[in-house]
């Protein structure tokens, strides 16, 4: 579908190329969510993050979420880019971009996509601290 762009990549994500792809003369509002690797979790310094994905299923689940966004809101284009591999503090694990004729739909769909991605897409993040590594959310 040329109104959807899903990418799972071990290379740096490029915000500008996402913006270039999402903009169109039909759209009036674009909402972009950019996740970044924070330097601390609950006050504890983070050294780096490792992202692992079950790649074919992750792409399939991201496509489902994009499809749901089109069903729920009058949006024009949906972009989801996610990184894999090792990311340093300040790097970008995820970019979501949504264009729509009106901003309500763009904001709501963008929010829905990142919230749902964090619940359903098989990607796992391991945080490296000075005293060891932890798979995020694995244990109660």
């Amino acid at each position, binding site marked *: 579908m040329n109104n959807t762009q899903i990418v799972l990549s071990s290379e740096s994500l490029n915000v500008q190329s996402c913006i270039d792809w999402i903009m169109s003369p039909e759209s009036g509002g674009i909402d972009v969510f950019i*996740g970044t690797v924070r330097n601390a979790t609950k006050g504890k310094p983070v050294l780096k993050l490792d*992202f*692992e*994905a*079950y790649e*074919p*299923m*992750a792409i*399939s689940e991201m496509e489902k979420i994009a499809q749901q966004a089109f069903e729920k809101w009058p949006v024009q284009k949906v972009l989801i880019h*996610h990184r894999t591999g090792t990311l340093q503090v300040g790097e970008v*694990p*995820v970019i979501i971009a949504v264009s729509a004729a009106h901003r309500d739909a763009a904001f709501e769909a963008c929010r829905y996509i*990142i919230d749902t*991605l*964090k*619940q*359903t*897409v*098989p*990607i*796992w*993040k*391991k945080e490296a601290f000075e005293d060891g590594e932890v*798979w*995020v*959310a*694995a*244990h*109660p």
Partner: protein
Amino acid sequence: MKINVLAFGVAKEIFGSSLVSLELTNDATIYNLKYLLEQQYPRLKQLASYMVAVNNEYALPGDTIHERDEIAIIPPVSGG
């Protein structure tokens, strides 16, 4: 039947491998698979939760497993 189970994230560490092989009866369900795995790898029960995917789709406990299905253990996801 013999099936291969893919493991990701913390499950890979619990299994000590990204792929384990199991012997299942022909009418085995996801429920049966989880029971067997938890017998063999008790640390699975310490996870906040985990799902099983069959052919890239989340499966329900009652779903039947077929030979050649691609089975994967999905510990709590944490992307984004």
